């Protein structure tokens, strides 16, 4: 493969002119971490989306067959009231991943907007950032418990409770990146070239901040899943009639010595998703840094 690159010395072939499939194969071979972590994540996303078809009713009780270990008929065993741990783990993936995505998107959108207003337009920069510091001082768990006690438990409340304390971190990071990028010569060049505000932000500043934003978003995604599990574990999250990895672990905790699979499978799912999301964030960060991009043959900087 190296030979094809060096024969194409103009560097054009690197960017264009290669079939999508060939580029994908080459890419995966060069980035095994990316391939494995995105594979795991995609698997879980598929499971979460398809759980109504893949898994049976997670609420079906079968007390005579309770606390059974994993077997050919019950792959993940059964819990203390005879419900299928396999069905419940699959259904639980919907809650965990759903909360993760919702929190990551909310945090990113709001955090980027706040960071740009403070860092690029410098509007009320001090006021906004001190307000963000104040919000950051609120512990997520306390906020969530207070909100649930106040308005009752619902997905919207959980997503809000987890997003609010994460937004300042994102906003602060975006502001810091924007403050650096707006002083860059290429951004000043874009201004002298008559760039409008939206073009300067979208073409020149945000792409430069995309790496850190993406990495932060994956971190938020992972920590939101963990927080949701903690809240459900504490009983302040997903209601007990809806299976989530958090409340499954809470129930399984009491039978840890007798039936470790009740806690083990949701915990394994959580660990795998969190790990792959974090790895994906690291790989994306490297890929989005143009100075780390592979250089065309024969031309180095």
């Amino acid at each position, binding site marked *: 493969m190296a030979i094809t690159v060096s024969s194409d010395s*103009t*560097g*054009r072939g690197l*960017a*264009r002119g290669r079939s999508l499939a060939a580029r994908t194969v080459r890419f995966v071979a060069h980035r095994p971490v990316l391939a494995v972590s995105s594979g795991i994540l995609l698997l879980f996303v598929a499971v979460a989306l398809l759980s109504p078809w893949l898994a049976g009713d997670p609420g079906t009780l079968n007390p005579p067959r309770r606390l059974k270990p994993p077997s050919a008929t019950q792959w993940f065993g059964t819990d203390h009231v005879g419900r299928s741990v396999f069905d419940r783990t699959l259904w639980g993936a919907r809650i965990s991943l759903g909360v993760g995505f919702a929190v990551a998107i909310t945090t990113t959108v709001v955090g980027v907007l706040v960071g740009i207003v403070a860092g690029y337009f410098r509007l009320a920069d001090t006021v906004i950032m001190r307000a963000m510091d104040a919000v950051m001082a609120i512990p997520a768990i306390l906020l969530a418990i207070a909100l649930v006690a106040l308005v009752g438990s619902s997905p919207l409340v959980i997503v809000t409770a987890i997003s609010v304390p994460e937004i300042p971190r994102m906003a602060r990071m975006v502001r810091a990146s924007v403050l650096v990028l707006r002083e*860059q*010569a*290429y951004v*000043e*060049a*874009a*201004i*002298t*070239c*008559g*760039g*409008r505000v939206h*073009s300067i932000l979208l*073409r*020149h500043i945000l*792409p*430069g901040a995309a790496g850190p934003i993406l990495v932060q978003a994956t971190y938020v995604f992972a920590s939101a899943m963990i927080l949701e599990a903690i809240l459900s574990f504490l009983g302040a999250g997903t209601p007990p009639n809806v299976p989530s990895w958090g409340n499954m672990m809470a129930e399984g905790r009491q039978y840890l010595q007798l039936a470790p699979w009740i806690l083990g499978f949701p915990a394994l799912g959580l660990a795998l998703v969190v790990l792959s999301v974090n790895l994906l964030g690291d790989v994306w960060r490297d890929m989005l840094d*143009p*100075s780390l*991009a592979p*250089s*065309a043959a024969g*031309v180095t*900087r």
Partner: protein
Amino acid sequence: MTPALEVAHLSKTFAARRGPFGLLGRRVVRAVEDVSFTVEASRTLALVGESGCGKTTIGRMVVRLAIPNAGSITVEGEDFTRLSGEALRRKRQRVQMVFQDPFACLNARMTAEAIVAEPLVNFGLGDAATRRRRVRQLFDQVGLPQTFLDRLPHHMSGGQRQRLGIARALAAKPAVIVADEAVAALDVSIRSQILNLLKDLQRETGVAYLFISHDLSVVRYLADEIAVMYLGRIVEKGPVRSVFDTPAHPYTQALIGAIPASHPRERRRRALLDGEVPSAAALPIGCPFRTRCPLATDICSREPPPLVTVRHGHAAACHHIHANEMTTGGTTT
């Protein structure tokens, strides 16, 4: 004919707060003080001086990356400093910039074609097909092969990137190009190529250059006129030949004396300067140069010297011009 660029009584101060929360008051740095000059179309004015003398600040104000505290910048008869919003953005088409660092001034995520097309898109010049043709024409003009169109900047050399930066500055057909140390970051071998390119492009397009440099040999090659700056003020300005052959201000004499001679026989008695440049936050009263000037007398510490004409088009700000000229005037260079 209205000049391409007319700068009148331009001043810029920077205020730095001292102490925690600015409790110790403000330290005012006078970066540029009452600077005036004119550049006609197809002409090049060089701003020279030591680092920190305010020449870069002037360049940034001319392209409106910095806002002057006082004075006016008139581009083709229209005061650039009074514009804002969309009117300012449109007027930017007339004043473009070539940056010092050919690595930092190009967005690393954009292809060469997109970089050069950007001003065309922003200023709404032509449809997509016209822009494609114009970008290819610009590549020819600056001597970049068409195969570079979809290259990324970090796959290009420093000289190639600077050509790209020049193509971008030329794209919107500006009246004035500010070149801030445009060749300082380049290898000596590339430098002369880029200087020749700038000269050729000026001949073809009639653009006026405000060329900011500390390198006198470059200035002498490229510029028609020269303005020598010291601590934010112009101390001498005039046609390049006149200023190089018969420098009137002791500072200019020292600068020119510091150019290495190409032959031992051409070595002059050098008037080297003692001491350090005073801080721009604590300027000497009177003539700012008096602390290092070999000719300084009482009057220099009392009154700042005005810019007076020495001969046609050549002026200097020194109380001792005439006494000075008699001793050193006519030095061959």
